[in-house]
């Protein structure tokens, strides 16, 4: 040992370690540059949209955010209708796409026979490779007529009727109550469990659950749904756009979910199975908590795409700045407004469209912040 250490380090080794250190430094700087480049591009894009939109933002300030007036002739611009349209269509897309994606990922990782997993997984990822203009065409020429002939007349006849016609509405109320009873009953049963026992418990829970779900059903059937589904069955509109978006973001969410479900260590799942869990219990209590942050990440990846999607939405949204509560009515979104009008816009109109682009940044940023906040809350809950 001592003999070895006494020997002087050969010159070439010394030289080598010095070049190594230099290369390390260069490499580190290059990596840092790459990372900073993304930040710089993002910041640059945000700032240049803000700069481009300065005319309208200075002129109208916050009024630009809260006005639904969009009048290129009078140079009056308000972003409320595009913002609402963007958020509503993305929300519909998430509501539809998340459960389905979860089902797909669950099926592919836990239930499907092994030979089926590869092909079906690849097929779902291929959905993501379809250009959005194709979704737009499909939406306009295939899906819109389908919605107009089959889905929307039914929705507007059954739920969109603002003046209820006795019997039919009563039936609807009962059905709504019964459906809502399913989640509310266990809730009350659980809450009461610590206080009362036996028949009194069951009866009280029943009464509470019935009255709550009845009240909810009443509100839903007679004030929420009629407003949401009131309107002519055009086939175009917020609902259709939301459904098309759901199909588009489905592959993103489901492939992320599938990937992360596969990372769950087999021994965790096997232990749970060994304790007598069902497949559902394993997925709900082991797989999902283990992968929660990645799953939420996947959902927000899909949401990000939904918020910014342009072409497909433009085709099926109906492009109208008139704000309505109804999902069957046409609306507009931030990105489709820009795509539609940018070509011929000059002066303040152009500024307003660029400001809309900035707002999309802001909206996406807020959504991501909420996601971070949710993740942190979840982590805190786990830590308790």
């Amino acid at each position, binding site marked *: 040992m001592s003999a070895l250490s006494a020997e002087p380090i050969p010159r070439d080794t010394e030289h080598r370690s010095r070049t190594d250190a230099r290369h390390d430094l260069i490499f580190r700087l290059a990596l840092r540059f790459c990372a900073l480049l993304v930040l710089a591009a993002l910041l640059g894009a945000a700032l240049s949209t803000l700069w481009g939109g300065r005319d309208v933002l200075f002129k109208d300030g916050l009024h630009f955010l809260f006005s639904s*007036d*969009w*009048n*290129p*002739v*009078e140079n*009056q611009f308000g972003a409320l209708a595009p913002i609402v349209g963007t958020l509503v269509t993305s929300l519909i897309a998430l509501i539809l796409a998340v459960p389905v994606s979860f089902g797909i990922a669950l099926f592919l990782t836990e239930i499907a026979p092994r030979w089926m997993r590869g092909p079906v997984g690849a097929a779902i990822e291929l959905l993501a490779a379809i250009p959005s203009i194709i979704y737009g065409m499909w939406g*306009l*020429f295939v899906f*819109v*007529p389908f919605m*107009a002939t089959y889905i929307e007349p039914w929705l507007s006849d059954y739920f969109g009727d603002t003046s209820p016609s006795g019997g039919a509405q009563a039936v609807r109320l009962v059905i709504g109550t019964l459906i809502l009873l399913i989640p509310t009953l266990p809730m009350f049963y659980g809450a009461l469990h610590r206080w009362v026992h036996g028949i009194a418990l069951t009866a009280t829970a029943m009464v509470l659950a019935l009255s709550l779900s009845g009240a909810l059903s009443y509100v839903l059937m007679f004030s929420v749904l009629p407003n949401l589904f009131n309107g*002519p069955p*055009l*086939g*175009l509109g917020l609902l259709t756009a939301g459904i098309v978006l759901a199909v588009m973001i489905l592959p993103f969410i489901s492939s992320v979910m599938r990937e992360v479900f596969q990372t769950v260590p087999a021994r965790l799942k096997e232990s749970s199975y060994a304790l007598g869990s069902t497949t559902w219990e394993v997925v709900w209590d082991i797989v999902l908590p283990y992968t929660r942050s990645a799953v939420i990440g996947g959902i927000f990846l899909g949401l990000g795409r939904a918020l910014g999607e342009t072409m497909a939405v*433009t*085709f099926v949204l*109906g*492009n*109208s*700045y*008139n704000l309505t509560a109804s999902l069957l009515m*046409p609306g*507009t979104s931030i990105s*489709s407004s820009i*795509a*539609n*009008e*940018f*070509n*011929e*816009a*000059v002066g303040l*109109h*152009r500024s307003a469209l660029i400001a809309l682009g900035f707002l999309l940044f802001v909206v996406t940023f807020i959504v991501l912040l909420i996601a971070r906040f949710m993740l942190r809350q979840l982590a805190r809950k786990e830590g308790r």
Partner: protein
Amino acid sequence: MLTSLKLPSRLGTLAFAVAASLFGMTAQATDITGAGSSFVYPVISKWSAAYAEKTGNHINYQSIGSGGGIAQIKAGTVDFGASDMPLKAEDLTKFGLGQFPDVIGGIVPAFNVAGVAPGALVLDGPTLGDIYLGKITTWNDPAITKLNPGMHLPSSKIFVVHRSDGSGTTFNFTDYLSKVSADWKSKVGEGTAVQWPTGIGGKGNEGVSAYIKQIPNSIGYVEYAYAKQNKLGYAKMKNAAGSVVEPTIASFQAAADTADWKNAQDFNLLMTNAPGAEAWPITATSWVIMYKTPKSAGNTKVSFDFFKYAYEQGQDAARSLDYVPLPASLVQQIEAYWASQYKK
């Protein structure tokens, strides 16, 4: 105008440009660049292909929209701009620009009402205005039945379709409504995009055509070629002279012929609601904008030569794409304008 034509012709231009650069085409060939209105893009492409074959000079036209065309010519990055909206005299003098019409197109109200044949329905300006204002909401409204005595019209609701993108078509259509309906003028006005009181927006002529086809009891406005090729139901219009006219190449040309060009400085005139007895009331043109003092004498010379060629020999090409060539009387005025206004 015709999207289906855009891609092949653009590819054609590209292939041509590549071929030209590869084989080092004749040294004296000049490349002219133009940009602007998408309304004229198909016909300019067709003209330029024929013109290149004949003279070896290439016209590269980019359909980036009228606003873009105006910006590009003001910046001096192109040899000519094309706009669906004429520039005002003060803008022209400020930048030293001149403008003249290139080709004519018609805009037709198109509808989809079961049992009503194309061309059977008659509308007039105020009625069309009230439909687009949302004041007339059903097809059997007295205002419509009065214009169509004896025709069975359903009591269904009218679905109004308009353009969602900014466009010269919308500009001419809303200009017409502003001329014939005081209510429209005060409430909505005219522009390439306006605040529509009602209805849904389709992107481009093709979007509006698709919506009209799909939505029963709808009405919209499209360029003539789209109504014709998509076999949409189109309406006849009662014009300013009070006669009912069909949308045809003849009636579009009649509008251009009877419009008061002589008193319009720099051709700053919209042909909507033209006075002639045979004139189609919603006829539109677009304008070529060029510097009066050329930035590059050679390029300007070729540009004039190109438009002269288009007026004189490009008529069949225009007709084949459902555009209308300018009437001879107007071409004469344009050539006089060139001689007096432009330094060659």
